[in-house]
């Protein structure tokens, strides 16, 4: 096994796409926060980006097989951390999601996302049959289900949901049988249905979550209550028009009508100021990113590498879909950030570490 692959082997296209998305994000964070009490936030984001790049390169050097070997340990660490957060975590915005690490508050669930990608990859890589058996499927479900429930308890519905596409994509690639798929889909539909069915949702959702669901279903009924965020976001996006209002000129953005305009709703701010053409650019970059990830997965030298990269692609794709759909009012507000554009330390670090795994797999694609 040859060590230290050359810098030529890095996916420079992928890095260029990443850099472009980060630039767009920093520009819009600046536009959304300059001249407000949050001014300077874009520089803090740049700092996270720098740290993220460093961690990405560091992680890419460490052979992913070594990481996969430690999957059980990582899983235990993740579960313990989640329990620790529930017991003694730091509350912000009404949820226990943060623990202090290195003087910053980090969201444990972001780290757990990464761990689950690794654990799921390891699990399915070891299933050597062409078809995924039901016991294996159930095992995988339990493996993902435990941290999912713990994250739901924080409560953080958005992050919990992100674990599902990792499992689904992994299961498909591992040869999910259509009967099982049908059953799981049915269960999934029932689960989603119960969320939207008040008599049931009353027991399983927190009040704020129910409110979000309600306001998603009937935004006009309560234009200034829970539906306020979605409506203001749609106004921002719609009023941007094709050409946009120009950098720093979005009234919805500058006057604070867009909720958390520098983070979860940054796409609304971007769409208002840059218009449809800007949206085209941003979504084009995300599409290129995801396609590039899929390409890398196909070129992985082994099943484990492929599962790792596809896990990352599934997680990022799900983030983009749910976040952007929320911004245009097509999905309820779930609090999932837009990867690399939304401000946020933990989320940014997660994305870079995940990309670090991808690079890791890529660097070793010829090694054998």
């Amino acid at each position, binding site marked *: 096994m040859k060590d230290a692959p050359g810098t030529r082997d890095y996916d420079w296209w992928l890095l260029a796409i990443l850099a472009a998305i980060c630039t767009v994000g920093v520009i819009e964070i600046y536009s959304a926060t300059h001249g407000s009490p949050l001014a300077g936030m874009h520089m803090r984001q740049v700092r996270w980006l720098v740290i993220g790049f460093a961690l990405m390169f560091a992680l890419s050097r460490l052979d992913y097989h070594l990481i996969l070997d430690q999957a059980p340990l990582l899983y235990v660490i993740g579960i313990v951390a989640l329990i620790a957060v529930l017991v003694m975590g730091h509350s912000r915005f009404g949820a226990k999601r943060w623990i202090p690490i290195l003087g910053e508050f980090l969201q444990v669930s972001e780290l757990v996302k990464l761990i689950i990608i690794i654990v799921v990859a390891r699990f399915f890589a070891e299933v050597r049959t062409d078809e995924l058996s039901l016991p294996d499927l159930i095992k995988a479900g339990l493996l993902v289900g435990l941290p999912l429930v713990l994250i739901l308890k924080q409560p953080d519905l958005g992050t919990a949901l992100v674990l599902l596409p990792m499992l689904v994509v992994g299961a498909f690639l591992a040869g999910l049988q259509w009967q099982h798929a049908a059953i799981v889909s049915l269960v999934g539909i029932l689960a989603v249905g119960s969320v939207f069915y008040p008599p049931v949702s009353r027991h399983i959702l927190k009040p704020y979550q129910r409110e979000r669901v309600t306001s998603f279903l009937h935004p006009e009924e309560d234009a200034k209550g829970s539906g306020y965020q979605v409506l203001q976001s749609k106004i921002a996006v719609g009023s*941007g028009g094709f050409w946009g209002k120009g950098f720093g000129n979005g009234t919805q953005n500058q006057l604070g009508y867009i909720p958390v305009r520098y983070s979860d709703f940054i796409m609304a701010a971007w769409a208002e100021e840059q218009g449809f053409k800007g949206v085209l650019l941003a979504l084009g970059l995300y599409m290129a990113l995801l396609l590039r990830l899929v390409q890398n997965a196909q070129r992985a030298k082994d099943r484990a590498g492929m599962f790792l990269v596809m896990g990352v692609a599934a997680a990022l794709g799900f983030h983009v879909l749910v976040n952007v759909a929320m911004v245009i009012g097509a999905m309820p507000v779930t609090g999932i950030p837009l990867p690399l554009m939304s401000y946020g330390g933990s989320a940014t670090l997660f994305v870079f570490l995940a990309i670090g795994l991808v690079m890791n797999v890529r660097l070793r694609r010829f090694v054998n």
Partner: protein
Amino acid sequence: MASYVIVGMVGVLLLGFWKLQVIDSDKYLSMAERNRVRSIPVIAPRGRMLDRDGRVLVDNRPSFSVLLLRDDPALVDKNLPGISEGLGIPIEDLKDDLSTTRNLPKFQPIVIKPEASDADVAFIESHRSDIPILEMISISRRRYISGGFMAHASGYVGEVGEAQIESSNGRFRPGDFVGKTGLEKQYNDLLMGTDGLRRVIVNSVGKEVGPLPTQEAIPGKQIQLTIDYDLQQVAEQSLGTRPGAVVALDPRTGEVLAMVSRPTPDPNDFSVRVSKEEWKRLNEDPLHPLLNRAIQAQLAPGSVFKIITATAMLEDKVPPESYTAFCPGYATFYGRQFKCWVYGKSSHGVVNFRKAILDSCDIFFYNVGMKLGIDRLAYYATKMGIGHKTGVDLPSEESGLMPSQEWVERVFHRKWYAGETISVSTGQGAVTTTPLQLARTIGGIAMGGVFKQPHLLKDAQNVGEERFNISEPTVQKITDAMYGVVNDGGTGASLKLAGIELSGKSGTAQVIGYSTRERLGKQKKFEDNAWFVGYAPRRNPEIVVAVLVQESGQHGGTASGPVVRDIIKAYYDKKNKNTQGQTTVEYNHYDFGEGTNPADAAAVVHAAQSEAPAKIEGASAATAAIIPPQPESQTVPPPSKGTRR
């Protein structure tokens, strides 16, 4: 396969953006604009009203109104209890305000407290950040001279009604203050300015972050009135609190120098908002304080009408000027007895034209009326201004009524009874006039037949006039007789003023007939209405004053005459002030009798409703809207005693 999923996903998202940003973009753009811009009205102050010498009669005082910005219902709900407590408004009232205005656009603020106290202003200023939905606008409120000074002429303002908004072609908006009555209503277009709009950019928590171009308010125009503050004041004080009215005119121009109506509300009470209870009380008050009696009280003019009968007689020479009647205190027509006002006390004996006016002998004019006939009488009365509106520049003027054959046929589908002419010729029966009409008519006769359109706006354009040629000898004799009423021992002798040719005619009009009065006993409610119409000088007068004192129980010369005298004296005092100094005035304190008509006809008339009169029996007549000629007026009233002075 994964690649297709990715491309499909991005494509669907892009479609979503296309829908919002391209297809529905305009809709969201206007929503964003409404979010961003807050419009706060800048209320244009109303124009002031000045008297003829430029003294302020009606102006404005600064005041703050508290606005509630409703564009964020969540914020409104959250802050209602705090607002209720801070401004001392019951929370139910706030909710009422919100529910009644829920159909207005959300970005339009509503007034929740029209008159903010200093404490309210302090509360709003100190809670700017935590209650960002309160706003104050400076409003200029109407300020009238207190105590109801000139209140009926000036009128008052109030919040515009639904019907007015609809008929205004968008000129009025809910919450606007417009003239409701009087000059405020008549000249509302002049007085009312155009409100401006202060537009500001607000951020998502309602804080103002920057200005936008402001639309300036255009203040209303100031109007100068013909009212003379000094005369108005004398008129107000002289009439006192007695129900009635005063109108002073310059018959040469039609300018109204003073106009008083009693009782009066204080329009300052309406300048903010009238409570429902107060409004109800004013409307149900049996004395009708909201009625402008100067132009809306339609009452029998009593003996003042004899001047018209006399003019008709001299002009038609029917009967000839030399005609005399013998007055034993009563006369009999068609087998029925009609009394003169001296009945039971004395008699007038042989009465000629001049003596008939000086002593106000009813018998003389009964005979004149019988000889002239109702048609000639109605012809002259109508030509000289009775029975139709004067055209004064005030809303809701009443026309009074001059009965005629044509009128009874049209309204009652019956023939005119000759006996009715007897009542009408002395100003009783169905004939009714307003104080303003009488002032204009008597002034016009003294002017030789020029009847100017009364008006209160100083620089009124195209003042109308009606000319009715009255021959010079007739004017001479009539005015001489009216001079004699005051200065030659007539019914107004107590009013004599040294150095001033005060002339005039008294009138004491019965509210109900004698028979009814006897039945009910002598209640104040049914006392006579006292009139006096005086002018000076004797020919081509400069001022004519009509005074009505309602149900005073006194005759015209006693109750109303002094008011006329006071005003005319004040007019000359003012006129002579700089040149001759104060005029010494001699008062004669003789108590003279006064003629009233014995015809058993009621004639109290309050406002409006002059259409479709209903037939009303005696006692209820006092409260009725209009009294048709009663069949009773032809019956001979039983001789009554002790009701005369």
